[in-house]
C-alpha cells in the first residue's frame, strides 16, 4: 500500500502528542491518587464504592496505553483504549456542564475548570485518536516491521 509521506508524519506527530498527554496525565494521577479519587467524586456520576476502583486503574490505563502508543506498539488497539477513555471523560464533562456544576475537572495536575475549552480539547484529541485507529502509524515504531509491510 502506497502511503502518503505527509500523512505518515502527521500520524507520527499525533501519536507523540497523544502519548505525551496521556503519560503525563496518568503519571500525575498516580502520584496523587487521593486527589483523583476526589475529582471523580466531584462529578457525582458514579456510586461511591466504585470510585476508588476507577481512581486506582484509570491512571495506569492512561500511562501504559500512552507508553505503548509512543513506542508504536499496538497503535490501533491503544488508540481505541484512549479514545474510549476520552469519550467517557467528555461525556462526564458535558453532563456536569448541563447540570451547571463548576469544579476542577481533575484532568491534568494543575486546576482547570470544566467548560467548553475542555470539551474542545477532548474533541481534538478524539479526532487524532480516530485517525490513528483508521490509518495506524508505523513510522518510528518498535513493533514487528515484517508484519506491517
Amino acid at each position: 500500500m502506497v502511503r502518503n509521506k505527509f500523512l505518515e508524519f502527521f500520524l507520527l506527530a499525533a501519536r507523540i502528542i497523544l502519548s505525551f498527554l496521556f503519560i503525563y496525565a496518568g503519571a500525575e494521577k498516580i502520584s496523587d491518587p487521593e486527589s483523583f479519587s476526589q475529582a471523580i467524586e466531584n462529578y457525582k456520576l458514579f456510586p461511591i464504592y466504585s470510585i476508588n476502583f476507577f481512581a486506582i486503574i484509570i491512571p495506569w490505563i492512561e500511562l501504559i496505553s500512552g507508553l505503548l502508543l509512543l513506542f508504536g506498539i499496538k497503535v490501533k488497539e491503544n488508540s481505541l483504549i484512549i479514545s474510549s477513555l476520552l469519550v467517557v471523560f467528555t461525556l462526564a464533562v458535558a453532563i456536569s456542564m448541563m447540570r451547571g456544576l463548576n469544579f476542577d475537572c481533575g484532568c491534568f495536575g494543575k486546576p482547570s475548570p470544566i467548560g467548553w475549552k475542555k470539551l474542545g480539547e477532548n474533541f481534538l484529541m478524539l479526532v487524532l485518536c480516530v485517525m490513528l485507529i483508521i490509518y495506524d502509524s508505523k513510522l518510528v515504531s518498535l513493533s514487528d516491521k515484517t508484519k506491517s509491510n
Partner: protein
Amino acid sequence: MNISFKDIALIIIASILVGFIYNSLNPKGISLIKEKKELVFESDSLLLSIDQEVETIDSIKTSEITEKELIPKGNNVRKDSVQKKEENKIIIEPFTEPKAIKIDLAYKLYQQGVKFIDARMPDEYSLGHIKGAYNIPFDGDESYREILNNFSKEEILVVYCGGTDCDLSFYLGNELSEKGFKRVYVFFGGWNEWIENDYPISKN
C-alpha cells in the same frame, strides 16, 4: 481495520494488575472502597444556648462568680456543648471533624465576632464577601494559608463558599480540621443565603 480485542483486554488487565499492586505498595495508596465523609449538623441546642446567653448577658456578667459556685458538679448544664460565657464569648467543646451549620447559627456566631473564612477564589471574593471574612481559596496556592498561623487552634472558625452546591467550604473545613483546628464549622448556605438575608457584606 483489524483490531485485536484480545490485545486490548490484555493491556487493560495488565493496567488493572499494575494499578492494584502499585496502590497496595504505595504509602499514599487509597482504600478500595471510598469512605464517604459526611457533614454532621451542629445540634440546635447550641443556637438556643446562644439565644439564652445573649438575653441574659448582663445578669451573667454581674453574677458570674456566684453562679460558678452555685452550679453543682455533674449538673446538666455541663453536658451541653455550650458551657459558659466569658466576656461575651461562647465556649464550645472541641471536635475533630467539621460540623455544618445553617444560616441562623452562622449569623449568631457572626454577631459573637467569630472569624469567617471564604473558601472561594479571590476574584469571587473581591466581588463581594461576608464583612470581615478572610479569603483562603481552597484551590489557591499556599500563600493564602499563611494567615492561618495567626489563628489559634482553639478558635471557632466558620468556613463558607458560594452556597449549598459548592464543596469548597467542605474541603477547606476538612483541611483545617486535619491541620488541628478544633472548632471548624462549615456554613452550609454560604454566600447566597447570606446576601438573601441582607446580612453585612463588603467588597474590595
